[in-house]
């Protein structure tokens, strides 16, 4: 392939990537634009990207009509707890499954994959009944429990890949140097697993942060409801909606995930690459 052809191919790749990024960003940019538009502009025949008379009224109305801060706090508690607990449970399990291959661990891995195929409507009623008997209906802890159970299989699957990517020889070298099993785990394996653990926690966090149906069904009182549930209060029957405040509230709801991504993006990328290669 000549230099010129290579350059053309490279340029084509960049254009394709740019188009893809625009495609991905479109809904979010439109959401931001809508959030700052006054009502007459929302109903304009010729919508513009940049609001002609930007306003914060939609945000004011959204906060005035719904307890967004309380809902965001509930979502944050549920999502952070779910992320933390999921990795706390999944990490040692993943280590055992990756390092000690037995029939049991192979079967467990298979079961983890199969469990991802269950539609949640099949699980919600048994879960509801179990939580009811545990007196965990209408509690954030009940919801956290569900989110952990929900995130655990995939978190486990992800982490098994990361553990396998850590060379076994490193642990053997540490053992030769006199480190015990626990010391090896804490000082050698855990730091290498950190990117994977962060990526897995983020996955569990975002899954819980965005989750709607379990929260809708399990939480009864307004004080407990999470952000996705409260967002639906801007929707009426037959698709009618309070578009401006809905866009404003939805925009605010995306911020924590974006901030979290921005803060730990480098670690996630590292984590993903680490998990992608197996020695």
């Amino acid at each position, binding site marked *: 392939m000549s230099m010129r052809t290579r350059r053309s191919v490279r340029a084509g790749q960049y254009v394709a990537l740019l188009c893809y990024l625009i495609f991905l960003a479109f809904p979010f940019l439109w959401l931001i634009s809508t959030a700052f538009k006054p009502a007459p502009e929302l109903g304009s025949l010729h919508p513009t990207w940049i609001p002609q008379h930007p306003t914060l009224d939609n945000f004011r109305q959204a906060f005035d009509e719904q307890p967004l801060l309380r809902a965001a706090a509930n979502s944050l508690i549920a999502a952070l707890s779910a992320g933390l607990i999921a990795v706390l449970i999944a990490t040692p399990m993943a280590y055992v499954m990756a390092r000690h291959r037995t029939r049991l661990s192979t079967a467990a891995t298979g079961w983890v994959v199969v469990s991802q195929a269950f539609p949640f409507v099949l699980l919600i009623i048994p879960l509801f009944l179990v939580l009811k008997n545990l007196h965990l209906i209408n509690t954030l802890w009940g919801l956290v429990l569900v989110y952990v159970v929900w995130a655990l299989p995939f978190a486990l699957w992800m982490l098994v890949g990361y553990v396998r990517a850590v060379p076994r020889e490193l642990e053997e070298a540490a053992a030769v140097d006199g480190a015990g099993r626990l010391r090896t785990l804490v000082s050698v394996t855990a730091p290498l697993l950190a990117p994977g653990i962060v990526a897995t926690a983020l996955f569990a966090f975002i899954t819980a942060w965005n989750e709607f149906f379990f929260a809708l069904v399990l939480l009864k*009182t307004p004080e407990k409801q999470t952000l996705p549930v409260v967002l639906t209060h801007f929707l009426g029957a037959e698709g009618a909606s309070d578009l401006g405040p809905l866009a404003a509230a939805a925009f605010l709801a995306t911020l924590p995930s974006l901030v979290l991504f921005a803060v730990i993006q480098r670690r996630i990328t590292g984590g993903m690459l680490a998990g992608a290669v197996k020695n």
Partner: protein
Amino acid sequence: MRALVRTAAAAATALALLLTGCGAGDDGEADGKITLRFQSLAWQKESVDINKRLVKEWNAAHPDIRVEYVQGSWDSVHDQLLTSFEGGEAPDIIHDASDDLADFAYGGYLADLRPLLPKGLTDGIPRNSWETATFDGGVYGVPFLQEPRVLIANTKILKASGVRIPTPGQPWSWPEFRQVTKELSGEGRYGVAWPLKEPVSVTLNLGLSAGGELFHRGADGKVTVAMGEGDQVVPDTIHDQVNTDHSAARTALGMGGGDTLPGFFGGKYAMVPLGFSYRQQIVEQAPKGFDWTVLPAPAGRDGLAQGVSPQTLSVAEDSPHKKEAVEFIDFLLKPANMVRLAKGDWMLPTGTEALADPSLHTADRGWATGVALAASLRSAPAQSVRGYPEWKDKVATPALQEYYSGAIDAAELKKRLVTDGNRVLARYQR
């Protein structure tokens, strides 16, 4: 989706009951006071405020029967209620739409209200409305708010065209409506935009005006689909407006009601057929100086008749306090309160006395036109037909969409709605 949920629910419940040992609930009230949970689907600020205020008023007057307001959501309400019913955690008082009640009523989740309803409430709501919440002889909800489909028109275009302005007393006939939309069309403008993202309920409900029935219940109680002359008036009018006259915007066929508003405000469409409550969005979003009016939907052989699925209040069968729950419903639906609720939702009350309230008989924002249509509202044709959701999703929606866009002709539409449709319904009625 509903079928999947139902099947999944049945299987899952059996498993869950085994796992949990059928733990009994504790509904006892330690201090002798009763707490009722009222799940409301009110969503507009005014409406939520009024509901909460009414709950507060009740609680102040009834210290021993406390009502707890629970905010529900129209989105996924069916699945949420089904789960709550299965789990024995359903709210005592349930706000929903009558077309969502059939499954719950037949499933034994809702209380038959007949022995509980006070005479005043029963007599205060017309029989037509009660029929919307009556299943297999039982009454499973109190219908309290409803909305007809009306034509919202751009007053300036309407007046400039010189067409006769219809009133509830002298509405347009369907042929006249077709002619008017031709006259209202012009350079870059359509006489009407039909938002038909969900074409089935619009077609069936408006079809009643022309004598359309589509669903016929036989002596054996089984329902079959048959398409007579009356059933073809509405579909044929829309089809011809789009494909022959070009007086209806083709692009609007895939839109939801709110999506047509920008075009309506921009003068691209002279009229849009919308639910009565859409007036609120119009008031909020219309540009300054935009002049609009509310007209009755066209009339046919059966006058202004059209089908509706009112909003309802039901009581859970599992509720240990059904009597008190109905007392609260009775309070909530006192004529004056019903008027407050109707205004908050920009809908019509079902109650005769509430409908007579002078504040609803004002020409402002089309209230009087809506009230004048109330007597013509009937139970939506399909809401008690088992298998309707599947018929709607798998047969009628694609068939009507294709017919309206001109992809198939009337004979093919009839074949699909009737032949294919009856095959679907038969499975539910074996």
